[in-house]
């Protein structure tokens, strides 16, 4: 059965201030959804609610139609994986150790990774083209490599829905393009991906859907060509970008 994750009328308040005010957003397998929103619009909060890290104050989050609240963490982890922003780990774990952590919800919290787990980790690293990094310390990787390692961990989890918090931030242009290609391939392979981003142009180029979070609501949600417009950018960021600057053209 295809996995789906949906926020239905999700509300969230922080210190009395309403952050999310009735968000409806659905993620299915095969989707590559870009979530746009200004700084402080509540993108990360929405991701945390969708992942079940916190309970919404109103509405609910549903995983495969059932309310997520109260569901077993390991069961959620088998369907939904989280890819945080590439960060510095406090200890120099090897990359294959980091990726093998993705097996925890499958093989249990105790005991070493099994033969199957190890084979899967190796295959995942191969799939993302970072097999050569397997024995390097995670802390010694570049930002782009770390992001790929974290994605590899999510894939090793064998969850079909991936929630990514600004996977493109901090990557150089080449790595952004490479990562977007990779995400496109994953979506084509049947993964559902929801990512936050600050790049409307990337969102327009690669996503199957773009959702726009303004004033605590999903104001627009649809194909990039319809959603990413001069008007939307103005609503989002308060700047009016002339048409000729929305897409830049490169000399051949």
């Amino acid at each position: 059965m295809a996995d789906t994750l949906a926020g239905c009328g999700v509300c969230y308040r922080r210190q009395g201030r309403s952050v999310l005010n009735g968000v409806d957003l659905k993620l299915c397998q095969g989707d590559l959804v870009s979530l746009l929103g200004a700084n402080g619009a509540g993108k990360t909060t929405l991701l945390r609610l969708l992942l079940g890290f916190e309970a919404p104050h109103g509405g609910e989050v549903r995983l495969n139609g059932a309310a997520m609240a109260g569901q077993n963490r390991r069961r959620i982890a088998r369907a939904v994986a989280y890819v945080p922003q590439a960060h510095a780990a406090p200890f120099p774990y090897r990359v294959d150790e980091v990726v093998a952590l993705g097996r925890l919800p499958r093989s249990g919290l105790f005991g070493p990774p099994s033969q199957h787990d190890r084979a899967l980790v190796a295959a995942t690293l191969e799939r993302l083209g970072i097999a050569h990094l397997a024995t390097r310390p995670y802390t010694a990787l570049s930002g782009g490599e770390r992001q790929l390692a974290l994605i590899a961990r999510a894939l090793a989890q064998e969850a079909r829905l991936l929630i990514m918090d600004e996977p493109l931030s901090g990557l150089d242009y080449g790595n952004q393009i490479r990562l977007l290609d990779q995400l496109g391939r994953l979506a084509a392979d049947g993964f559902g991906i929801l990512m936050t981003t600050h790049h409307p142009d990337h969102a327009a180029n690669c996503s199957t859907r773009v959702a726009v979070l303004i004033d605590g609501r999903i104001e627009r949600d649809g194909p990039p060509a319809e959603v990413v417009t001069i008007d939307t950018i103005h609503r989002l960021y308060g700047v009016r970008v002339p048409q000729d600057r929305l897409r830049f053209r490169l000399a051949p």
Partner: protein
Amino acid sequence: MSRTAEISLPQTCRRRLATTIAWPLALAVLVTAAMLTALSIGRFPVSWAEILHFLATAAGLSTMEQTRFDALRNILVDIRLPRVLAAALVGMALASSGAAFQAVFRNPLVSPGLLGVLAGSAFGAALAMVLDGSWLLVQTLSFTMGLAAVALGVGIAHIFGSATMVVLVLGGIVSSALFAALLSVVKYVADPLNQLPAIVYWLMGTLAHASLDQLAWTAPPLLVAVTAMSACGRALDALSMGDDEARSLGVPVTALRYGVIAAATLASALTVSIAGTIGWVGLIIPHVARLLLGPGNQLLLPASALLGAGFLIGADCLARTVAEVEIPIGIVTEMVGIPLFLLVLHRSRRGWL
């Protein structure tokens, strides 16, 4: 491509086998050797061969003159064995508590006393010495005060609502400071001729009071705590990457964090009730283990435990033999630990500094 895979796969498997089995085995051999050495040296040297002969006789496999047997029994079993076992247990508990705390608090510079357990236990021991001075009371009060100090630290953190890592550390600092102040009060009111020196020596750490009776009731909970922490190795790897990440990997974050804090606190408080406060073991041994075996907690925690046991047995040998009179083991661990720590810092700079 497939050729290289064929060649490299068995090699990596062998290397994994080497790291998962060979190292713990090597460390276990090291600890056994350290125990035998510790049993053999002292004012009356006993050779390894004689120890083995004694063991064989005790097991009924060999014979020995009765007077010789009794003398050996007195030296080995009554005098040296309790110290050696106590050293092993204390080293084990402090080193694995330190390693587990470093993972829970995501900081390689954390030691088991972070939440106040050592300060609380020190106060408890001193209080008992002033009250009546029986060893049973010293052990009981140091143990309970250690737990109370951590409970207070965690409680303070919870007053401020969400007990984040920083607030937890601050709670521990407050609790440590409070119990350090209480310790000063006890020292101030203590009789300066007998009680005060006793308190001061206790705080330097000593294994001289270890007895088999006492170890019989301290060893089981201590070993359970150490084993429980070791079993959580991979979950601790996940936790050390961040709460949200651990949660997304199906780890019960709050239960794991407080479970490990409880186990480490229990083990650390027991060490103070066995041997007073012994510093540095909980900080340096995990670093040495990390340098040898890498940072993965699944291997690091048991390795730290064994390495800590070996280290403290060695330190106790030094404490007993280096001078005419015994010197407190806490002084030895500091004197040996500081240069060792500098060495480790130098070697592992790349990873996290």
